[in-house]
């Protein structure tokens, strides 16, 4: 067997999977997006840009997604970084495995079940009732953008913690000692050594969380009470309620394009950051 054949064979499973499960469906969606809604719902083939011209009708869904996805990602980062830092640098190694497992434990239960728990916690008999005992009355949490944000951060935190943890764990501790030997204060060491070296982890974590959030459907549906509407929710409605597959496909294609553009810009930025860092380290 030649090297070439072997390479093809190795690629075959993934290649077939991508072709059947990704490329073909995406092509179908693209074709549908130029079609029209059939009278009783579904799609009839056509070649019209009408569905794309109608996109502004879902502006609010795109706006909500493009606001809450970055806010959710950044909030998760701010919460996850100290935790990952603690786990990788500060904690006694004998506890590390147990603590890491604890970070994953929530994943053992379905996000659906955990979101139901949040419905109760954020509902009138949960946290607001608790606040009521302390004299803070009339707090409404459930079915607000805040509730959705809480659900998002809670659900995606482990995805942020792990990449950052890995990059901090690999960090050569001798560099920190060297920095301190050369007279740098801990804060300066963190900003000039630790943080730049953990950028790959931050970048991976942010991208993982952001991409998943852009397609999020469940958390806004459950904690937003049908009032906090993501593109994912608009898509479900278009396919399952109003059965306008053509328009739904156009919205889906647009979401994919928006994501591709955002992620490309993001990668460029990260690469530039990385490049700058290399310059610094060369100097």
């Amino acid at each position, binding site marked *: 067997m030649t090297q070439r054949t072997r390479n093809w064979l190795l690629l075959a499973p993934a290649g077939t999977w991508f072709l059947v499960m990704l490329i073909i469906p995406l092509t179908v969606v693209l074709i549908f997006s130029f079609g029209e*809604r059939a*009278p*009783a*719902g*579904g799609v009839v083939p056509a070649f019209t840009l009408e569905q794309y011209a109608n996109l502004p*009708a*879902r502006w*609010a*869904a795109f706006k909500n997604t493009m606001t809450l996805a970055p806010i959710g990602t950044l909030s998760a980062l701010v919460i996850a970084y100290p935790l990952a830092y603690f786990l990788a640098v500060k904690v006694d190694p004998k506890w590390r495995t147990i603590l890491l497992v604890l970070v994953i434990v929530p994943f053992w239960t379905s996000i659906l079940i955990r979101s139901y728990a949040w*419905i109760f916690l954020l*509902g*009138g*008999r949960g946290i607001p009732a608790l606040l009521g005992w302390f004299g803070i009355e009339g707090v*409404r949490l*459930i*079915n607000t953008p805040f509730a959705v944000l809480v659900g998002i951060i809670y659900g995606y935190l482990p995805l942020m913690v792990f990449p950052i943890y890995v990059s901090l764990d690999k960090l050569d501790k001798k560099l920190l000692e060297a920095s301190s030997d050369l007279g740098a204060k801990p804060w300066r060491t963190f900003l000039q050594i630790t943080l730049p070296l953990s950028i790959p982890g931050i970048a991976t974590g942010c991208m993982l969380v952001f991409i998943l959030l852009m397609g999020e459907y469940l958390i806004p549906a459950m904690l937003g*009470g*049908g*009032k906090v*509407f993501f593109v994912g*929710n*608009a898509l479900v*409605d*278009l*396919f*399952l*309620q*109003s*059965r*306008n597959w053509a328009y739904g496909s156009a919205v889906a294609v647009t979401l994919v394009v928006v994501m591709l553009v955002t992620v490309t810009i993001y990668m460029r930025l990260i690469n530039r950051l990385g490049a700058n860092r290399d310059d610094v380290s060369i100097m």
Partner: protein
Amino acid sequence: MTKDSDYISKKKFMEELGRYRKGSITRRHFLNVTGLGAATAVMGAAMPGLRPSPAFAGGNIGDRVVLATWPNYHDPSNFEAFTEATGAHVQVNVFGSNEEMLAKLQAGASGWDVYVPTNYTISTYVDEGLIEPLDTSKLSNYDASAFDARYAEAGSVDGTLYAVPKDWGSTGMAVNTAHNDGKPISSWKEFFDISRDKFSGRSMVHDYQLTTIGSALNYFGYSFNSVDEAELADAEKLLIDVKPHLFAITSDYQPSMRNGDAWLTICWSGDGKQLNTDIPEIHYVLGAEGGEIWSDYYAIPKGAPHSDAAYALINFLLDPTVNAKEVMAHGYPTADARTFALLPDELKNDPILFPAQELLSPLEFGAAATLTDPNRAELMARFKSA
């Protein structure tokens, strides 16, 4: 059932169950050896609802039947009884709207054997070729003359029977009177006005265009079924104006009504009955301007994978004794006179189940065009994403 150990030890039972699972023995052998068959036969004789009727006395109908239905809509013990009598396990899929059911069937291969379409959807299913005509010879418990025609006629299209009546009901509102000085409200006008005022942040509308847009149309005195563009524009303006004051847009409104987060909701009568039974200060009322009256049916989708089991299940649920238990569980009125006769008097006289005729007369049956109208669908989507 505690005497089962007399016939067979636990260990032996598990061995036999293992064999049955592996397929090395038949269901009949399994039931005989374990004594479960005898137990079922005894129970079946004691309870008329369990007596095998001709539809499934003939033989094996398979090990399961898939039912697509609505939330809080059956008595689970009836399904257990069906499984004991026939060996077929009832797998229940719960849906939120007729649109969703239609969308799943349009997408193909739903895997359902029985589903529960509402009156105004049946002609669309027939047009789209998604529904099987019913063979009444397999439905010995179906007696057309027993049903009130008003709630049965949508089951036939062009003289062919496609669906048999399950129950009927109305779409009104449930209000927690404790927050309104003990007073209920009585009209859709009041519903949307109080939602923007005293009940701000406490009201819910369905995540369902038919009822939510219909109620907003009723506010202006328009028809629940209107597809008139100017009237729909009024309804949209009202809904978008109300939206910031809503607690939620959801068809699963019982939990928030029960825990006190919400005080007012568009409500199907059976949910209204369930809520009122448990929390008496929650009243169910019909809008004075009108609203919806509807009838749900049992039907079999085209290409149902377990057709025999589908007929067996529908026939079982049409048995008046079984159906009476269903009514007591879901709280929707029955169109079947035989079942009605078996209901306790307090249900027969219940004002939520069987409202006075003058309250029912302004109500409208939903129309097929109301469900499939693209403008209404798009209006709902705009309202939700606003």
